[in-house]
């Protein structure tokens, strides 16, 4: 059996000697770096601004929702108060309270004919007298 022989290493050409070249521009930067940095900053600001705007809008929508809910609550409260007023003002309740306070509905109603103004219609008792004369008769 033949033994495999490694192939000989290829011969590399000699490495050139490095020397310092005086007066060379060693720290020359890549062209447009400033532009790239500036652009990146601007984009970052814009993106951040957009995000901030979006957050503000979202917060405003929540606030709007909260205010709207408050409006609905106040409107409902207003209706409840109107309901309570209408209940309290119902003629049945008023009549009940009036009766409890001893008030009565007058049986008769008379029209007085005064000297300065004449109420049309059948003359009521006392007929033809002035208002002053009528009132002066009262205790």
């Amino acid at each position: 059996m033949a033994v495999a022989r490694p192939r000989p290493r290829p011969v590399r050409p000699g490495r050139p000697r490095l020397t310092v070249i005086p007066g060379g521009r060693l720290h020359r930067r890549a062209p447009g770096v400033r532009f790239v940095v500036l652009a990146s900053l601007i984009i970052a600001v814009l993106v951040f601004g957009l995000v901030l705007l979006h957050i503000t809008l979202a917060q405003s929508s929540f606030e709007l929702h909260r205010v709207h809910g408050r409006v609905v609550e106040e409107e409902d409260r207003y209706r409840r108060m109107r309901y309570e007023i209408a209940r309290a003002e119902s003629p049945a309740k008023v009549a009940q309270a009036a009766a409890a306070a001893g008030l009565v509905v007058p049986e008769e109603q008379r029209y007085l004919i005064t000297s300065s103004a004449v109420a049309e219609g059948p003359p009521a008792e006392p007929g033809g007298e002035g208002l002053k004369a009528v009132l002066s008769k009262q205790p």
Partner: protein
Amino acid sequence: MAAVKFRPKLRLVVLMLLVWLGSAAVAGRLVWMQGLASDRYTQLAAEQRVRRFVLPPQRGSIYDRDRVELAISMDMQTIFANPRFVPDPQAAAEALGPVLGLEVSMLEEKLSRESGFVYLARKADPALAETVKGLRLPGIDTVAESKRFYPASKLASHVVGFVGVDNEGLGGLEQRHDRLLTGTPGEVLMERDPRGRPIPAGRSRFIPPTAGHDLILALDRQIQFTAESALVRAVEQFGAKGGTIIVMKPGSGEVLALANLPTFDPNEPGNAPADTRRNRAVTDVYEPGSTSKVVTAAAALESHVIKAADVLHVPDRIALAGKVFNDWAPHPPLDITFAQVIQQSSNVGTIKVAAKLGKERLHEYMKKFGYGLSTGVEFPGESRGMLPDPDAWWETSLPTMAIGQGVAVTPLQIVNVYATLANGGVAVAPRFVLATVDERGTLKPSRPGGSRRVIAEETASVLTEILVGATELRHGTGRNAAIDGYQVAGKTGSSQKVIEGQPGYSGYISSFIGFAPAGDPRLVVGVILDDPRPIWGSVTAAPAFKEVMQFALRHLGIGPGPVLHVEGAPLPAPVRSGGATGEEPASPIATD
């Protein structure tokens, strides 16, 4: 063995092909999903995230003419459960039972159902809902729901009407103007995350609900209350089965009050029998009796068949076509004027004049006054009454109808007849609604109903004077309706009552309808009582008329107005054996 030699280039090609195939598959799938089937996937995604909520509109309120609420809606809290999230139905039922006032077993059954939603308490008080929330029971929650309230309870219940559990109008003006009162629902569309939280930047749309319109009615609460109280007293005092009182403004047709007995509380409509909820003033018909004689009189005067001062020979009975028609009390033959025939409500005198008028003209004027026609009030269930065609009249129809039997009218129709007289012979359609207020608060007056001339102003004037005599003359039948300081024009009625569903009569309808002040009519009031004892309208209905009219005149500050000089000499002999306020003998209208 020879070594297998792999060529790097082939391996790379195979790998590249596999990558290309894979990429092509992914790309193809992307094209399919993003392009060809994008709509379907967008829809699926939206269904998962986007939720649509209907926002119910606020139902409009109903006000009286002074803008006080007769009907108003408020948010209440409906308590519900999702049984799938109730871990221990028994414990939850035991906790909720005492709070809700419900049986624990019934609650436990509800909470054990295979359902995602069950009602526990519908439209409950917010304080109760807070108590339930405080229990912190899983699967139990609340939601706001609007509920209708009627702060004045039974006041004007038949006019205002009522709603069902879902706030749909089921009677009265709530039903008639349901669409206007309901408004338009709104909508909220929003995207929610899997936890149900809204996504602020997501798709959203908000369409606010449009509130329903408010109604402002012509009703006056105070006059309505007075009418209802007077009706209750009259029904109780005279043992009537029920009744109706209507108060109207003749010039505009505005209905200031409309009271019916029996009545109901619209806050709990289900607790009252169905027949108490109908507006009898508009839906029920009856034979108007003597109150209809004004129509016969108007026809006769307008057709120049007779004049008010013409003298007639009037016995107490008359035979026509095999039937005998009586006056309501026996009396010797009298020579009285036509005006006195009406003032004393003589059947015989009226029939004699009707015979000269003829059936065609009588029918014509009945129709002109609105018999057999809708009043134009546009109220649900309004009946047109009954007026047979002249071709269908029997030989006895003319005398029968001339005295107000054999025709059928609703209380509103007959009150509108008197409103026409009060309005100088011009009929105006009655109306309940004065104006509406839209969601922006803009007031829109309702268009008044149509008006039409029925009789000449002069005829109306003559009739008014005749009717004043009915309340002022010594033997007028309406003296119990007279009001101190005012001239009242009116007519009594005591008519036989039709037996429902079969021919014949049983019982009586008593009525008084009139207007005041006669010289410048501003109000019309009609009182109709169902089967009172005694039967006479002069005794039962006239006092209630006086009470309501007197209050309404005072409440509205209406003075006596110009005085009419009423012609009419005292009667030579009493027509009846009883006085105006005493018990009067019953007398059949017609006998065979």
